[in-house]
Structures are given as C-alpha cells and as structure tokens.
C-alpha cells in the first residue's frame, strides 16, 4: 500500500494522522465506559484504576499519550497549512509533530514511573 507515489514524508505524515485518529476513536468508547464506573460510586472506578499500576498498562498509556499528542500536533500542522501563509517547511513541521508527540509521551512515561 505504501510505496510508489506514496513514498514521501508528507504522505506518511497524513497516514500517521489518519491512523492515530482512528485508533483514538476506538479508544474513546472504552474511555467513557471506564468513566461511567464512577456513576455507581468511586470504589468501582478505583478498583479498575488499580490496573494502571501494571507496567504493561503503563506502556499502553504511553502509546495512548503518543497518539493523542501526535494527532493534536498533526491537526495544528494542517490548520497552519490551510489558514496561514504558505511555508516551504512542510516536512520540518511534519517531523516536529512526530517529535513533539514522542517528547510528550516520553515525558508522561518518565513522570508516571517516578
């Protein structure tokens, strides 16, 4: 699927934005379901949140924060592309979006592990 005319950084930036958006939309129902546990009292929710101490769940949270951050920065990049004067540094902005997402996700992982 990725090759030929799609083999350039800005198409890959689009793909990352699209895939991160799709994965976040899959996460959202689970997110609301867990929040919904609080309706019946704090114990249910706290009981579930104990799982977040598990290192595997911590790693999954790192992935989630990365998806959120990279999707946000990718969205800001597109807004800038469409609403500001054209800049020839599009590849730089795409790389910065990826780096920003990774930086925030790593920051989360370090603070969660502390």
């Amino acid at each position, binding site marked *: 699927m990725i090759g*030929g*005319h799609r083999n*350039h950084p800005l*198409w890959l930036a*689009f793909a990352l934005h699209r895939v991160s958006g799709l994965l976040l939309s899959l996460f959202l129902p689970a997110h609301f379901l867990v929040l919904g546990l609080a309706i019946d009292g704090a114990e249910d929710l706290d009981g579930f949140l104990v799982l977040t101490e598990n290192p595997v769940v911590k790693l999954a949270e790192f992935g989630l924060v990365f998806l959120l951050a990279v999707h946000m920065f990718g969205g800001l990049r597109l807004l800038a*592309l*469409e609403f500001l004067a*054209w800049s020839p540094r599009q590849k730089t902005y795409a790389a910065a979006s990826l780096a920003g997402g990774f930086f925030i996700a790593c920051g989360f992982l370090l603070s969660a592990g502390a």
Partner: protein
Amino acid sequence: MVSGPDGSNSDTHEPPGEMIAVSLWRGQGSSGGLVRYDVPVRDNQTILDIVTHIQRNIDSTLSYRFACRVGMCGSCAMTVNGVPRWTCRTHAGQFTKNGRLTVEPLRNMPIIKDLVADMAPFFDKWQKAEGRFQGKDSRTDDVEPVRPDSPERKTADAGIECINCAICYAACDVVAWNPDYLGPAALNRAWTLMNDIRDTAGGERLRAVSAGDGCHNCHSHQSCMTFCPNDLNPTAAIAGLKRMAVRAVLKGEL
C-alpha cells in the same frame, strides 16, 4: 556509428551489451498486463527513449504518447516504477533497479491502449473548475496593466507554468478515492485565475471550486507538489482557495 532518433545505433553488428528488463503495460481498456522487453542500455537514455526503442525495434503495435521530447508539452507522462514521471526528462539510470524497470500508464484515468491514458476526464474538470479566463475588455480596449511586483501577479506567477501533464492528478490519492474530485491541476488553474486582476468570473469560479467535489476534499497529502515536474505547488493553491472560500462564507458572499 550513426544514432537513430530514439538513441539506438544503426550499426547492427555491434555486440549486445548490457540490457534492461523493461516490464511494459500492454492492453486495451482495463484488460491487460505487464509484458517484458529487453532493451539495450545507452548513455543518457531516458524512459521515453526506451519506450520508443521498443515501439520502433521490437513491437510496432505499442501505443504511447509524446510530442516535444524536451519537457515542454506534458504529453509523455507515464508511471515509472509506481511513480508518475515525465518520461522525456527521466533518465533510465535513475530508476533502473537491478536491471529492471516497470512502465505503466498514468493512474486515475481510463486506459485507451497500452501506455495511453484517456485525458478527457482530466480536462473536463478544468472546465468544471471554471478554468477559463473571462475578461471585461474587448480587443479594441487598451491592454490593462498588471504590475509584475503586485502580490496577485506574484501569486498567479507561482502557478502558471503548468504543462497539463496530469502527473499531479495521477499522484493524487483523493482523485483515486473520489473520481469526481476536481484534482490539483484544475484547482491550481482556478487559483491562478482568482489572482488575475483582469478576470471577472471570480464569484462563479469560487462557487465551482468550493462545491461538493472541489477544494475542500483535499487531504493535503502534498503528492501533487512532490511530483510536479515543474516544481509547482498545487497544495498551496488549494489551501489558498480554501482560505478564500472561508473568507467569502464569513462575509456572506458564498
């Protein structure tokens, strides 16, 4: 030794040298497939030279399109190793991998025969995007001055060197996903006209390009900009049309 117009040598006693295995798409309409031809390697050989060699020396029934051979006319665009290219300005050595090369017709357009794509849908969209200049002056009026350093002229200048090769159209995935999308070339043309101070059809054109299959479909993959052989930037033109449409909506003009 005399070189033929396709770069081949007329000296038939020359021993066979290094060869390129060229997989060429052959067929009519949507039915067909890749056929292999072995073509001798030459110095400074272009993809168009290779296709011409096959047509003149191996199979004269091969159909392809070209005219100027110097990157001016935009006729000879084809898909080379999966990438849309102007074949007269693409050196074979740049794309040959392990002695192999694949040449196919452009994507996103119906195939007439072999390497010839039907460009009619591509040019129909130029009409749908109101890509025609409409002036207010007649031939008896004086020529209206356009200052070369005005912002509008500079913006139009950035997009007017389009040679209608359809490489951007073939590279665009949005055209593949929505065959009615006007595409980068037609929208780039519309953008240059929107910045032509002599043109009087801006309102109709903005309505045409911001309608359902217009500029707002663009996902900003920027493949059009990446592959344009003339280094034009249709993505920037489309972004400009989007901004213009938003401004018109806010002012209640659209």
